[in-house]
């Protein structure tokens, strides 16, 4: 008995030792950013000091009271949330179609959808810029520098991911369940609402969350296809480096602030993330 007890204690020690080490490695860079965000410009130089000596909150108050920052933050929230919702709806419909209907060239369409995520973004900026400024215009209004432009554009890299993730989930729902619902008189909408959506809920949740995070984090398109009105928070971050001669303290403070919303979302959705990320692996 004593050996098994000792073994178990030893095992627990190893487990905790391992996880404490992992946690330190994970948190160290974030901690350093936090420390930097709490220091004034002068304090930063000299001997690097990993401990937090005092709270210099001016970096935060400067950022938070800045109306530009507030606008960027609102834009980011609006764009990522609308994009995530749009992606969830469109991906659900598209995946259902790909999974249940006999469509000509189904596999090729699926593969083409996915290739949309592979394009290196830098070169595609130019055609997109032209489209945004010239092609889509109504009088004075163009797609350039609008939230709706970004919301639609982010579908290009979020939809492939979402459809891919949901494909496994919806393929895993037996078609007999659809049939049973249809025999009970449900139409297409009824099947989606009473069979597919409840059963695919974890997958849908993950799709929404990850789309939200991807959209929240996107930088390159936002930086080049917006100017004043629709700028997002990641663009604001980069502006610190180029425009103000790198004010590291405020940059760090702003990075910390951008982390908070996605942290909250991901923590709340922890359970679903693991459940939904199986990519259709067999579930017994």
């Amino acid at each position, binding site marked *: 008995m004593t050996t098994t007890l000792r073994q178990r204690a030893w095992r627990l020690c190893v487990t905790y030792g391992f996880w404490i080490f*992992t946690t330190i490695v994970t948190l160290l860079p974030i901690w350093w950013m936090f420390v930097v965000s709490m220091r004034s410009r002068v304090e930063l130089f000299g001997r690097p000091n990993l401990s937090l000596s005092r709270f210099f909150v001016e970096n935060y108050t400067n950022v938070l009271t800045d109306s530009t920052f507030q606008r960027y933050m609102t834009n980011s929230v609006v764009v990522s949330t609308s994009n995530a919702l749009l992606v969830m709806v469109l991906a659900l*419909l598209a995946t259902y179609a790909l999974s*249940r209907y006999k469509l000509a060239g189904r596999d090729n369409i699926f593969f083409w959808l996915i290739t949309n995520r592979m394009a290196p973004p830098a070169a595609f900026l130019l*055609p997109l810029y032209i489209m945004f400024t010239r092609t889509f215009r109504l009088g004075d209004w163009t797609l350039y520098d609008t939230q709706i432009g970004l919301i639609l554009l982010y579908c*290009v890299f979020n939809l492939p991911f979402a459809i*891919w993730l949901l494909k496994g989930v919806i393929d895993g729902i037996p078609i007999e369940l659809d049939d049973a619902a249809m025999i009970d008189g449900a139409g297409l909408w009824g099947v989606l609402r009473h069979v597919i959506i409840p059963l695919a809920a974890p997958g849908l949740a993950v799709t929404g969350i990850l789309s939200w995070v991807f959209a929240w984090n996107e930088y390159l398109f936002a930086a080049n296809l917006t100017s004043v009105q629709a700028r997002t928070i990641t663009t604001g971050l980069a502006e610190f480096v180029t425009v103000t001669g790198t004010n590291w303290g405020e940059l760090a403070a702003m990075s910390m602030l951008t982390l908070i919303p996605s942290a909250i979302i991901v923590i709340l959705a922890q359970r679903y993330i693991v459940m939904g990320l*199986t990519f259709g*692996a067999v*579930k*017994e």
Partner: protein
Amino acid sequence: MRNNPRIGWLLLSPTLLILLVFGFVPFLYVLFVGFNEWNIFAAEEGLRFSGLDNYRRLVFDEDFTTSVQLTLKFATFAILSELILGFLLAQMLTRKFPGKWFFRIIHTFPLMVAPIAVGAIWRLLVIPGFGPVPFFLDRWFDIKYQIGSYPDQALWTSVIMDVWHWTPFVTLTMLAGLSSIPREPVEQAKVDGANRLQVFWYVTLPFLRPVLLTTVFIRIMDAIRTVDEVWMLAGGGPGTRFTGIYIWRVVFPRTDYGYGSSISLITLYLTIVLCWLLFIAISGRRKGEVE
């Protein structure tokens, strides 16, 4: 299988419309520009058809070929480490121990940080002058660490940064995959006298294969097009001139649109080929399972 394709197409149409307009049309445009000479600062204005010149040029462009090599090196090392680490961590998370949820949440933190902020954080860590990494490396190990001057160090730093950022994603997918493996085959193998390594190789791995390959697929796509975080970290210095960053440099500072477009297409093509091979591997496996 429903036989009414019209409804299927109707459901698919909004997705196709958006991807055609914002994905396929720009692609065609890039394809077209890739066959032309087009530089804003050139003497003659506008596009000039040049056939395959751009493609001929890129084969002999040492900057481009080095960037491809670097990108592949970066992707290989980063993705391999992420897979090994992610698998180990996921395996540790299948055990039951008090406080597991806490460690799991902490571990997923890096995933939520925007790439541009990841780059900023790591730059803060390694910047000479006030970053702790060069300071302590010099003090404790007497290593001169400066990513601006040593290309190798810059490459390794970006690999480590990528591992820090993306291992949690791999852990989560692996964890999902591991938790969906049925118990009976594992038990059966143990009863038949298989050791841990054999159980892993003959039971766990085949079950994990679809998830594993999908994860690798996504990581390859994202690693090859990485721009923001590495740019923020090293500013495109030596050792980190990856293809994505090289395209950026050709298209923006140099405004060489024709050439930039042809490089993008080749990169896209290479990614597709790489992924297509993996895709065949996945579906080949699926067919094997049905038999």
